């Protein structure tokens, strides 16, 4: 018998229920707007009703006189508070044009919702009432709503830039000049499509909320914010306000969803901190939903020109992409980089030669700034290639599944060095596609379609597929350097064994619904051979977890979780020195399993971690020179991205008389490598799929030509309800990542990446018999009906 045989089955890979849940289910959890802070003043922000206007004058005197109002300020009044403009961390090109952007505009408003004045009052209602007493004189200017109109510079928004174009970023493959043009000249088939990625409003269920608490005499400042990025926010707030970083603390309490929209440094965060400093009292702000719709960043917003070249067998020979990306009125934290995150993925999961040409121009409009939204650049890229593949299959007259199989990167080709130089860690696209096809009964639905979609039929069946690759686990710091991003992509972890063998884990990830406390406790339990109940996970407070780069880009597990596993291994290494000393054995002769060290071949000479933890605490008998603690810190910089993949298949039925699309079945087969907790993985996919489905069928930020957002509420912006979406059928393949010790990949964004193209391919497939070849998202009844009418008109 060996010790290993006694080891309990690992908790890793089990469906452990979440430890986060009881507090959330009982109302015990505290979100930022639940915090009770005595003496706090309430901030309210007056927002521009114009998309584009000169600010001629701001008179706050009447507001300042309202009983309960402590102060009212224009943008000019506060201009002395900022050490620098609001941060933009991603200058994608050296000559990128980026206007100075301050928490309140003082000379010009650049979108509806741009803050122009603010009030501090003793209650939220008084503060909001006072806004109505502020008199702002505007000179309205023409709005710039359309991206290609913006590119024309008919109206230049930021005079000091002289143009609306912020940057043009090209991805050219060195040594391949002329190959793309040659491939298109030689192609048996070509595809040329223009797709629109409509603007989306993230609509996390918790609007943003902020409390800034100063210590006027000590100098310290604590910022509580509904944020995904407490660590980045701390550095950026310190820099923007000139506060010494060591005196700045940021806490993200329970955070009610983010989806990228809380991955930012917002005007209201800076206003609360600056005004708390100025007035020497706490200042708080709660976002209303209507404000959230205009003052929190939007997602997507691109025009995509997609060209594919293929040989006679349908094998792709070149990909050429032109993107126009909507920055909005200003850049927020990583606005410019969002489309660039997709730049590497426009060839999707396909084995293409080194013939790839990508160019993206970022352009300012007079709309709410865009920034990260679940998937951030990668759903857009996947949509473009996957829709274009269906168009190619249609052109060739072959089944789209068949076309994809002819082009998949084969399992044997991994690790696969792509044309971009990036290495795809592992994958088996064919297996995922075949599993999805089997689960969806792809052949059966095709057969049913042949009998159902006959001339005159009013209920049309469609089936659509998307196979995706996701570049996630942001990110190897050197790759970020090559993209001119101003920070690294590492993550920090500390694992600390307490004297009673309970374990504290300190992580730099910042969960807002993902269940990190549960998942990280499982990693530690597995590594150290203890129960997850004995592990406490500390996070989201820069005073407790000072190092970290937070949660976005499906990075928390493949970077932060891996850092924790590595810190556990360092703890075991140190514990081994203590065990060897105590057991009078050579370190090389010790095995560690089930939470105990045992001398090889002598099962009775054993020392459990609990005893070692206590020895480390008393320090009575440690090896010479060994520090009396049992803890380790790791800062892990991933050597590669992680590359989850999968195939989603959607089946729809469309009523041609009403234009209504009903999703009959949705099958998602995702491969995120080894799964720490399948329960959590499934939840991420469910939610992601519905968010992608929402882009395909329901959601769009609708603007009029004057730049007014016409659906700035949850009554008008169609976040799907339970009755709007189906249950989802999940399958998984497991192809571990070879680049990290857990073999894991990210899963937070995969569902969203696969869903929009799968749904839209199904919609177009259903309508193809009517001559419909494309339509803009969302495939609302109106858009579907219009597409049918247009196709029918064209065919008459």
């Amino acid at each position, binding site marked *: 018998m060996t010790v290993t045989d006694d080891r309990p089955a690992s908790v890793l890979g089990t469906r452990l229920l979440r430890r986060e849940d009881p507090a959330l289910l*009982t109302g015990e959890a505290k979100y930022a707007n639940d915090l009770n802070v005595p003496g706090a003043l309430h901030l309210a922000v007056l927002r521009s009703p114009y998309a584009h206007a000169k600010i001629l004058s701001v008179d706050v005197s009447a507001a300042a006189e309202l009983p309960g109002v402590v102060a009212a300020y224009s943008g000019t009044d506060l201009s002395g508070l900022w050490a620098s403009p609001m941060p933009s961390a991603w200058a994608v090109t050296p000559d990128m044009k980026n206007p100075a952007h301050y928490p309140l505009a003082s000379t010009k408003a650049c979108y509806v919702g741009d803050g122009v004045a603010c009030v501090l009052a003793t209650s939220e209602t008084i503060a909001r009432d006072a806004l109505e007493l502020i008199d702002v004189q505007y000179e309205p200017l023409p709005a710039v709503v359309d991206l290609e109109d913006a590119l024309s510079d008919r109206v230049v928004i930021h005079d000091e830039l002289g143009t609306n174009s912020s940057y043009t970023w090209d991805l050219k493959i060195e040594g391949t000049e002329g190959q793309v043009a040659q491939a298109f000249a030689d192609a048996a088939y070509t595809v040329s499509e223009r797709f629109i990625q409509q603007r989306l409003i993230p609509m996390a269920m918790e609007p943003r909320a902020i409390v800034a608490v100063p210590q006027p005499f000590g100098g310290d400042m604590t910022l509580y914010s509904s944020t995904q990025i407490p660590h980045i926010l701390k550095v950026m707030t310190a820099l923007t306000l000139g506060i010494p970083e060591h005196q700045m603390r940021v806490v993200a309490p329970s955070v009610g969803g983010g989806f990228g929209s809380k991955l930012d440094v917002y005007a209201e965060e800076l206003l609360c901190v600056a005004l708390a400093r100025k007035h020497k009292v706490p200042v708080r702000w709660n976002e*209303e939903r209507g404000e959230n719709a205009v003052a929190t960043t939007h997602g997507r917003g691109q025009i995509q020109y997609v060209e594919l070249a293929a040989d006679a067998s349908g094998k792709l020979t070149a990909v050429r992409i032109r993107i126009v990306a909507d920055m909005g009125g200003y850049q927020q934290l990583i606005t410019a980089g969002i489309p660039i995150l997709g730049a590497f993925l426009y060839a999707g999961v396909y084995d293409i030669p080194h013939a790839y040409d990508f160019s993206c121009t970022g352009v300012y409009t007079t709309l709410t700034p865009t920034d990260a939204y679940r998937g951030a650049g990668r759903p857009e890229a996947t949509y473009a290639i996957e829709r274009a593949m269906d168009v190619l299959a249609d052109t060739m007259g072959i089944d789209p599944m068949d076309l994809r199989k002819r082009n998949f990167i084969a399992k044997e080709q991994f690790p696969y060095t792509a044309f971009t130089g990036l290495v795809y860690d592992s994958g088996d696209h064919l297996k995922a596609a075949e599993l999805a096809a089997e689960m969806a009964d792809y052949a059966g639905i095709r057969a049913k379609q042949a009998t159902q979609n006959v001339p005159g039929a009013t209920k049309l069946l469609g089936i659509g597929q998307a196979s995706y690759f996701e570049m996630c686990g942001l990110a190897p710091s050197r790759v970020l350097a090559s993209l001119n991003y101003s920070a690294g992509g590492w993550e920090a972890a500390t694992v600390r064994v307490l004297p009673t063998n309970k374990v504290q884990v300190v992580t730099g990830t910042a969960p807002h619904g993902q269940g990190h406390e549960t998942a990280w406790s499982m990693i530690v339990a597995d590594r150290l051979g203890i129960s997850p109940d004995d592990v406490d996970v500390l996070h989201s407070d820069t005073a407790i977890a000072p190092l970290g780069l937070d949660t976005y880009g499906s990075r928390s597990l493949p970077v932060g979780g891996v850092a924790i596993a590595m810190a556990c291994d360092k703890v075991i290494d140190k514990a081994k020195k203590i065990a060897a000393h105590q057991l009078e054995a050579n370190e090389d002769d010790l095995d560690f399993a089930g939470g105990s060290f045992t001398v090889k071949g002598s099962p009775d000479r054993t020392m459990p971690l609990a005893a070692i933890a206590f020895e480390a605490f008393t320090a009575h008998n440690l090896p010479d020179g060994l520090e009396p603690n049992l803890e380790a810190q790791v800062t892990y910089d991933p050597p590669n991205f992680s590359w989850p993949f999968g195939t989603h298949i959607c089946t729809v039925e469309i009523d041609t008389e009403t234009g209504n699309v009903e999703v009959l079945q949705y099958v998602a087969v995702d491969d995120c490598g080894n799964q720490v907790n399948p329960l959590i993985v499934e939840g991420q996919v469910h939610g992601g799929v519905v968010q992608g489905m929402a882009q395909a069928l329901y959601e769009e930020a609708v603007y009029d030509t004057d730049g007014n957002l016409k659906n700035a509420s949850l*009554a008008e912006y169609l976040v799907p*309800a*339970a009755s709007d979406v189906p249950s989802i059928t999940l399958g998984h393949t497991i192809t571990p990542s070879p680049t990290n010790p857990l073999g894991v990949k990210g899963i937070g964004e995969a569902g969203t990446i696969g869903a929009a193209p799968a749904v839209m391919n199904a919609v177009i497939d259903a309508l193809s018999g009517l001559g419909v070849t494309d339509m803009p998202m969302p495939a609302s009844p109106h858009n579907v009906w219009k597409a049918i009418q247009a196709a029918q008109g064209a065919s008459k």
Partner: protein
Amino acid sequence: MKISVTVNGTAHESDVEPRTLLVHYVREVLGLTGTNIGCDTSSCGACSVHLNGEAVKSCTVLAAQADGQSVTTIEGMATDGVMHPMQQAFMENHGLQCGYCTPGMVMAATSLLKENPNPTEEEVRIGLEGNLCRCTGYHNIVKSVLAAAAK
């Protein structure tokens, strides 16, 4: 104005402005912050509570309208430190992620089962359409409610 409201079994006498909404009353006057606010158009249902045992959106009820009535918030669902079967079902079926919609969802779901103890999946989906969730895609919420019904 003076109101007397029984909240989670405890009688409260309060003096409130006539315009005070029930959601602001429970959150700000009584300090019961488990009831969340997610919108300003009565669309999201995050603020759902029970008024005399039936789910209402507490942003569309004045505190004054609750005078003499009985209100249950999420804090009143557990008994003797044990979560309500609906709360347990949400935990067991991973029916929540960020948790912000969850208190309202639990209140709406318990009210739904009171009306219809054995709903179909479709009836659950339609019954919860006044409560929005951005994290779960509803899949596990529906599963949780069906599981609670089966208990």
